[in-house]
């Protein structure tokens, strides 16, 4: 894929820039846009963003690496995030993590060879009342059970 934004995306970048008195502040929202479009933040993508915002590649790289949600490597189609922080731990979140890990045959921060799933053990996602919880890409699933997970994953494999 060519690393360029479309005409309308570039307009969006202009709109984002207008929200802040300084150009640099547009970096995080534009990195989000880039990640959504290109899947992850490769060196080429970061250089492209740096060019758009008149920033150095070093600065963009520094910011991208500070925040865990910017992907610095390619991710599976379904990014599975399992919370094991206190409230979820009390709700058997670790068991959920182990189950998924065994089911997919991968460990934390790994991707299945078919590129369908990436697994990540995450810190509290701010949904502690719904423990145990997982997120698949951008969607939260709260009060999950092994059965629900099995059903959901079967669906994901088919789609």
């Amino acid at each position, binding site marked *: 894929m060519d690393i360029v934004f479309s005409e309308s995306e570039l307009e969006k970048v202009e709109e984002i820039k207008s929200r*802040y008195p300084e150009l640099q502040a547009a970096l*995080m929202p534009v990195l989000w846009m880039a990640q959504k479009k290109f899947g992850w933040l490769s060196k080429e993508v970061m250089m492209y963003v740096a060019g758009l915002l008149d920033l150095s590649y070093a600065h963009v790289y520094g910011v991208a690496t500070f925040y865990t949600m910017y992907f610095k490597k390619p991710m599976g189609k379904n990014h599975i995030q399992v919370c094991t922080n206190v409230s979820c731990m009390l709700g058997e979140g670790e068991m959920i993590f182990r189950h998924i890990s065994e089911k997919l045959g991968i460990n934390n921060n790994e991707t299945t060879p078919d590129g369908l799933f990436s697994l990540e053990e995450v810190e509290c996602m701010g949904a502690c009342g719904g423990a145990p919880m997982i*997120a698949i890409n951008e969607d939260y699933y709260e009060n999950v059970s092994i059965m629900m997970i099995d059903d959901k994953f079967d669906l994901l494999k088919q789609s």
Partner: protein
Amino acid sequence: METPKVLLSGIPDYHKIDVYLQHGGYKEIRKALAMQPADVTGEVKKSGLRGRGGACFPTGLKWTFMPKGTDKPKYLVVNGDESEPGSFKDRQIFEFNPHQLIEGILITNYAMGIEAAYIYIRGEYHRWVDLLQKALDDAYEKGFVGEAMKKTFGKDFTTNIYIHKGAGAYICGEETSLMNSVEGRRGYPRFKPPFPAQNGLWGMPTTVNNVETIATVPQIMKMGGEAYSGIGAERHPGTLLFGVSGHVNKPGVYELPTGVLLTDIIYDICGGVKGDKKIKAVIPGGSSMPPLRGDEIEGVRMDEESLKPLGTHIGTGGIIVMDEDTDIIKITKRIAHFYHHESCGQCTPCREGTGWMEKILQRILDGNGSMADLDLLVSVCNNIEGNTICALGDAAAWPVRGFITKFRDEFEARVSKKREFTAPNIVHGRRQAAGSLVFER
């Protein structure tokens, strides 16, 4: 007494602008605009409102720190990072009452003469960012925000509101780190002083307030500061969004007046402990707050002034209940791991100390801990506390020290009495790499 519903009205579809308007929405900004800005701040002062982000700082007082009569642009940052484990209340506002938050921002900005507000929302909350953005778009369209305000309200005041999405860093909830994050930098906390009111976003006067704090403001305008101060506990008045999680039958977010009994929250409102088990520990306000032991919770009232004498705090109001079967060492280690993972690494005591704590706790968990490890842990906590740039250091030290102090027996039972090897940190070994400073003649 009936509990006043200040933040979560329970009215169906209240998140939609039409429904919000039907129930008197965006009237309070009109009321505020008819007053002098200083009087608006005065009303908030009178209400006794204290920040809901964790530190309980008096909101009205904070607002008075903003310089007056300056030409510099001023900013508001609304803190919706909500990353403290056990806290999940602000997202209720994004989902069920976004317009009250927006109206609160308008009033706040008017009171301080602020030209733009940035709502910082944690990156994981994609869905809630969208929900709030929708509400914001509707408010812009109706002319309640931005340039159109002049026409809508007939007053020479305009302000803009923007959403800034985080990208997964707990530390960005800390106000100075948050400002760096808005500016498009790595989220390192800054030294204080200078405080944000003097030198905040882009070096300009800035106020940082929590989402729940700001969402309360329209209700204060509505009922008057005096009346608001009559809700709940005298020295920490109002209602709080308590997020209850852990071993209770009905976890969730409940709006209750401050000063409510912890036992009432657990047994009445949350339907008691799962399986009718006994309670071993309760964290009263998010994972960084020292825990209460089960035998200590009788009669405890949930407001800052009642919790302080017990050595803990209301924090974010995130209550985590643990039943009698909970492995306290495992929980402590999990908490230590979190703070180690989230330390930004700027200060040595925090960066190294959080790592040591996690390592020592892991050792104890593995059955290789010694009695001296317990004192070592407490000593590490004491050396982190107060010696760092930001309060993450304290947030890491408090729970660990709290758990060890309160559950000393349990920790002692877990450390082996006879260890087969000496721990590297209790013996002296001459460092091979360092040269001797004693010179031979």
